[in-house]
């Protein structure tokens, strides 16, 4: 890939709404991405490999559990800091942001929120330092948008639980040390269990042949009579609301993250349009190109404002599931449209690995599907404003 000349757009001077520490955290993440991620990520995506050497750097910049309290190894930061780190990571690659999102919001968050003190002390510091990689098992082959229909289950077997079932489309599954797995007990109630690599009957086959999130590893979690110690049950919350609480946190991170992907596409398109000469002038001179760029920066600015406000609400503990859903849906859709328009501006170059556009575009096809599809999020907003569920 060509030299990373990224310059972040800030059309409405949003930096003025951030604290000095927010900016220091964001700029440090941005510097790290420029130094360690963008020079290599294209190659790893092309090879469909996860750059494991980046794990330490991710931990160093605070990408693993930024809002987890410091006594458990987290950074104890606010939600806007978390969002800004996700934005910078996804500016590099959605796969990298996905790995950090899963670790933070889907593994550390439930252990912190729903776990007991022993579980927090045992797992959180290792997850924060990157010594442990975590994964999150909710989606099943036959239960994606409808997780309450899950068939993965556990039985009380005296001194342990016996876990059976399978989870699919699991980020980090092939490399995870621990998995937070959602399964039904004998009464049909959903609980979270911490499953560790090495437990007999627990396997993590990899999903190959993806055209998206190629620099991130995806797979299954398969449980064949896995004996899970009773102390690995998350005791403090059960029911579908427990995993959905994790998804609120992860979706919030996605809403920020995809702004990074959109900014990268816009920045690259803007520069390319000013340098690419056709008919003896830069293609940025043409009205149709200017229309694309004007719409891109407008949509990015709207998403930045939406997300900043959501961050303030989240810091105050007032952000609703429905508000987070709206931001996730709007921003991913915005980023995907910008990636497609940026691809047009880059002409044929836009399909090559010389530019990040096609990689972002393909990544975003996953992001618009996982953690609630675009359509399901529309129905969440629809239900919120009409009071009528369209799910059943």
């Amino acid at each position: 890939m060509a030299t990373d000349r990224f310059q972040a757009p800030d059309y409405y001077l949003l930096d003025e709404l951030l604290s000095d520490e927010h900016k220091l955290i964001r700029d440090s993440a941005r510097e790290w991405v420029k130094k360690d991620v963008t020079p290599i990520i294209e190659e790893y995506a092309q090879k469909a490999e996860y750059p494991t050497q980046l794990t330490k750097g991710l931990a160093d910049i605070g990408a693993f559990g930024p809002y987890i309290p410091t006594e458990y190894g987290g950074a104890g930061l606010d939600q806007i800091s978390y969002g800004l780190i996700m934005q910078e990571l996804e500016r590099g690659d959605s796969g990298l942001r996905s790995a950090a999102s899963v670790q933070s919001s889907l593994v550390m968050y439930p252990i912190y929120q729903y776990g007991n003190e022993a579980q927090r002390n045992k797992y959180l510091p290792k997850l924060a330092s990157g010594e442990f990689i975590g994964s999150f098992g909710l989606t099943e082959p036959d239960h994606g948008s409808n997780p309450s229909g899950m068939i993965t289950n556990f039985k009380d077997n005296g001194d342990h639980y016996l876990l059976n079932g399978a989870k699919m489309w699991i980020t980090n599954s092939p490399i995870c040390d621990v998995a937070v797995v959602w399964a039904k007990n004998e009464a049909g109630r959903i609980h979270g269990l911490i499953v560790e690599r090495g437990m007999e009957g627990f396997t993590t086959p990899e999903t190959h042949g993806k055209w998206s999130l190629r620099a991130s590893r995806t797979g299954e979690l398969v449980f064949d009579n896995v004996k899970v110690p009773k102390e690995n049950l998350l005791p403090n919350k059960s029911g579908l609301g427990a995993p959905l609480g994790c998804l609120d946190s992860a979706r919030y991170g996605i809403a920020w993250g995809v702004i990074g992907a959109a900014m990268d596409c816009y920045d690259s398109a803007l520069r390319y349009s000013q340098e690419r000469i056709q008919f003896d002038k830069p293609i940025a001179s043409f009205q149709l190109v200017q229309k694309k760029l004007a719409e891109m920066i407008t949509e990015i600015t709207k998403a930045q404002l939406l997300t900043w406000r959501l961050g303030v609400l989240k810091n105050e503990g007032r952000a609703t599931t429905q508000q987070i859903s709206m931001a996730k849906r709007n921003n991913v859709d915005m980023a995907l449209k910008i990636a497609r328009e940026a691809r047009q501006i880059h002409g044929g170059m836009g399909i090559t690995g010389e530019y990040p556009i096609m990689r972002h575009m393909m990544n975003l096809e996953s992001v618009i599907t996982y953690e609630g599809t675009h359509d399901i999020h529309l129905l969440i907003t629809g239900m919120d404003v009409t009071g009528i569920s369209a799910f059943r």
Partner: protein
Amino acid sequence: MKILVCISKVPDTTSKIAFTDGNSKFDTNGVQFIINPYDEWYALVRALELKEANGGSVTVINVGLADNDPTIRKALAIGADDAVRVNLDPKDAMDAAQQIADYASANGYELVLCGKETIDYNGSQMGGMIAAILNQEFISNATKLDMNGNTATIERDIQGGTEVLELNIPFVVSAAKGMAEARIPNMRGIMAARTKPLTVVEPSASFNATEVLTYELPPAKGSCKMISADNPAELLDLLRNEAKIL
């Protein structure tokens, strides 16, 4: 060893440069500021490496007003132990150098490091002026700095080779590319920086030896005309008849 590192705040290299007040002042409106890279990447990081290897302390110093604090806080996040800001908007290099020298002298610093130049005014004056006021040796453009007890070995790039010098503390040195490798603040450092001391001291007498009359932007770049490689006749024609240099 007590090390003092001079930290200057400069516009980011991507900033659009403009002037106000009849072209006599730099227009800071909308400009992002960073730590001068020579101060941060080389002087500060090498000072931290020396401290990590040999013990001691690293203080960063800046002459400026409160809006410099975020820049100084970054130096603390990178690893400096404490920071001092002399509360003065310096009028020129001599004004800032006098403040730094006064502070260094009053507080017994044994080694003063700065970048070889700032990337805004490119004056390369600070190290030399501080050393002159302190009546100490000054080594400019150092690419390597090693300490063995109180004795330093310093390398400088010179025409066609390298100069190796040895001298004893106290002295002042300006750092060039190669002295260290830039460090990105990590989360641990950012968190630690919250509680590290940033002391604001009032300036000693301020004076300026020079006065800026005006600034001018360099002339705009001429447009570049691309000529096909298989059309040398057009090139010759343009050189003869348009540029009139043949």
